Each structure stands twice: as structure tokens, then as C-alpha cells.
């Protein structure tokens, strides 16, 4: 099983109460978590990555148990080695594209220098055609370049899996189409398990091997895409 997830969490915020109770297991290498906004998709993804804390449950990705409340196992996000692409990309605004991508390669208390060179960095800069903006800061980039930089930053660390939070939401329509294709090819090339969350039908159609439908904090449906009749 590539994805084995069971998460419980009660969120209380200003008198409103939200109960998240998500459970799914899948062998799909491209799994899409689909649902309206407010369904708890981002919370689920953050708990899988370890940057949000569930009340209970179990998370195993690619055969490695990362969280298990029954045996009190809780790996830190640092130990999980999962690549995470945030919805607005969360690029470090004070670092150049090169420094952003190299961020995870340099341990210690100092950021990589502006001239930091490493094989992995060059590889992803080339793969994502970022050569011309390598010295630019995030606010100088286009939406597509930001997304690619965020992807490169996550991939440089050779993560065990890739988690993507609405990776196309910040892009215009024409670009979305192309980047979806890029992402799909990339996944097929690297054979890296990928979990993507979205509220867009097109993302599901183009990318999903399997879809897990989330509504109001619960899984309402989990279908293999091959089984779904083409909806019009």
C-alpha cells in the first residue's frame, strides 16, 4: 500500500467546531484528494506531512509508518522526507531561485550562498528551464516559474513522496493545462508517489489514478479513475 491514512482531529475555532475524520488506503501512484474548499483537504495533507498534529490515527506512506497514535509514534516533518508544495508555493522571499532550490541541501544555521552549486540543483534548474531566472527573487517570477521553483525545491531532497496543495490554483488557465502535463510526465519519469489536493475537475481528469472525495471532513467516495464513466 502506498498510501495508508487514517486521521482524526477536532478543530474548534470561534465557537464553530469542525470534525475531521479521514480514512483512505490506496496503491495509486497519483492520488487526488478532491472536494470543495473547507472539506479539510489541506489539514489532511499537513497532517500527513507532519506540520499539523492530529488527535489520533495512523499515517504510512510507501510502506513507512510515520505516525501511529496507538504505538505513540510521531515522526517529525524533518524525519518524514516528504516533499511538500504549498498552495501559494511558500518560496523564501529573501532567497534567490538558486538558494530556494538548494535550501534543503545545506544543513546548518546558514543559508546556501547565492553561488551555491550542486549537481542536484543544476539538474532541476535545467529540467524546469529556470536558468534565466536563477538569480531572481520570488517576487520577480511569473506564476509558472514560482510553481516550478517550489517543485524543484521539494524534489532536490529526493523525497519519498510528493504532496501538492492545489498546485495550479494560482495559475491562469492556459498555463495550468501545460503544467499539468509537465507534472504528469515528471511523475511517470521519477516513479515518485504523488498526492495532490484540488477542487478542480480538470485536475482529476488529467492527473488522477485514483480519487478520494472529501466532504465536510469525511471521505465520501474513493474511486479508481478507470472505473469512472466519463462525465459530461
Amino acid at each position, binding site marked *: 500500500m502506498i498510501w495508508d491514512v487514517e486521521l482524526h482531529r477536532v478543530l474548534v475555532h470561534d465557537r464553530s467546531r469542525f470534525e475531521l475524520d479521514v480514512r483512505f488506503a490506496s496503491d495509486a501512484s497519483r492520488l487526488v484528494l478532491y472536494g470543495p474548499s473547507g472539506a479539510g483537504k489541506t489539514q489532511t495533507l499537513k497532517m500527513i506531512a507532519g506540520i499539523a498534529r492530529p488527535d489520533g490515527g495512523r499515517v504510512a506512506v510507501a510502506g513507512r509508518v510515520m505516525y501511529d497514535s496507538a504505538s505513540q509514534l510521531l515522526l517529525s516533518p524533518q524525519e518524514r522526507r516528504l516533499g511538500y508544495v*504549498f498552495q501559494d508555493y511558500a518560496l523564501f522571499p529573501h532567497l534567490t531561485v538558486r538558494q530556494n532550490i538548494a535550501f534543503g541541501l545545506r544543513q546548518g544555521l*546558514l543559508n546556501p550562498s547565492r553561488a551555491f552549486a550542486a549537481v542536484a540543483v543544476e539538474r532541476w534548474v535545467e529540467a524546469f528551464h529556470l536558468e534565466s531566472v536563477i538569480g531572481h527573487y520570488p517576487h520577480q517570477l511569473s506564476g509558472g516559474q514560482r510553481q516550478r521553483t517550489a517543485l524543484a525545491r521539494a524534489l532536490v531532497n529526493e523525497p519519498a513522496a510528493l504532496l501538492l496543495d492545489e498546485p495550479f490554483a494560482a495559475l491562469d488557465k492556459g498555463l495550468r493545462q501545460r503544467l499539468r502535463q509537465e507534472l504528469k510526465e515528471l511523475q511517470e519519469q521519477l516513479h515518485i508517489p504523488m498526492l495532490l489536493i484540488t477542487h478542480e475537475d480538470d485536475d482529476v481528469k488529467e492527473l488522477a489514478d485514483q480519487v478520494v472525495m472529501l466532504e465536510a471532513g469525511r471521505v465520501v467516495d474513493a474511486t479508481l479513475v478507470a472505473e469512472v464513466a466519463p462525465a459530461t
Partner: protein
Amino acid sequence: MEGAWVALLLTLKVAGWATALNLILGVGIGFAMARLRFPGRDVLDALFTLPMVMPPTVLGYYLLVLIGSHSPLGSWLIKTFGIRLIFTWQGAVIAATVVAFPLVFKAARAAFETVDPQLEDAARTLGMREAAVFFRVSLPLAWHGILAGLLLSFARALGEFGATLMVAGSIPGRTQTLSIAVYEAVQAGQDDTANFLVAVTSIVCIAVLLSANRLVPGRVASRE
């Protein structure tokens, strides 16, 4: 006039040490208060801000009670290390540190609160330990605001009078800072010395404020 230069150097030394201490204390506590949620947080925040609104002489009195040679802490310092803080320049540093602390603390807290926690999470998913997250993401992004607070606290420490006088007294060449020297000069009718000291103090303060203004984040943004 020679006494004026001695006072200026002493003042810069005291304010410099106070600012260095506040860099560590203000940034550390400001970061903790910006990121941690715990009961009594608001009360603690008010307590840390208190030196800004309390009369410096009252603060000085508190310090005397706390570190005076008859206090438990003061007598312990004398017995164990032979350190006497009252009527020393180190005592003046402590007074200036306490009085100027809220300026760094407030600025640091506000600056850290503007740093998107998601950036810190991003660093964690990239394998960074908490210390690395702080020094590579949080601190650089909050630095402008912190620096502005540091300069203000330096200026405030330069002008410190009440608490310093209570704790360190006014010993020429040892604990007599610029602002105290001005007071003494005026009391003694030495107008030339007073004029000179006032001019020196004003120039230093204006220079510090001009640098602080340049570093306030709002200014930087509006210039672009």
C-alpha cells in the same frame, strides 16, 4: 571638556552593552511570545512592556531592591563572584537594559508575527531543525523590524537618566553618563560644559533616529 568625552564614551559603552543584551533578550522573548500560545500570555506581555510606561525612578528602585547588596541576589553575587553591581557601570548597563527592553521586545514580536508560519513549515519539510528554521527563515525575514527596534532601544539607553541615577549614581568617569553629566553641569552652573554635552547628545540621537527611520519596514515598502 575632557570630562565630556569620557562621559560620551561611557554612555556609548553602556548603551552598546544594553543594546547587545536586548538583542538576545528581546529577540528571544519576542519570538516566543509571537509563536507560543499559553495561558497568562497577555499578562506576561503586559509585564514585559511595563518598563516603557513606568517612571524610570520606580524601575530604578525595583532594581535596587532586586540587586542591591542587601538583597538575596545582590549578596549572593558579592559572596560568590565578588561582583557588586550597585554604583558600577555594569549596574548602569542593567538599568539601561531594563528601560530599553520593551522597544526591542515589541518590535521583535511584531516583526515575527508578520512572518508567514507556512515558510517555517516549508523549511521543516525540507529537513531543517528548529534552530536552522529560526536562523535561516524567521530571523532574516523579521530582521528589518528588529533592527529598527534595536536602534530605538540604543537611543533610549543613551538618554537613560532616572533608573541609571538610582542604580549607578553619578560618579564622574565611572558611572556618570551624558544625560547625568548634563544635569550635574547645569546644577553647578557650568553652562559651557552643559552646552557642549547637549550638542553631542543631540547629534548622536538624531543620527540614530535617522538610521532607525530608514529601517522601518513601511518605509522600505513605500519607496519601491
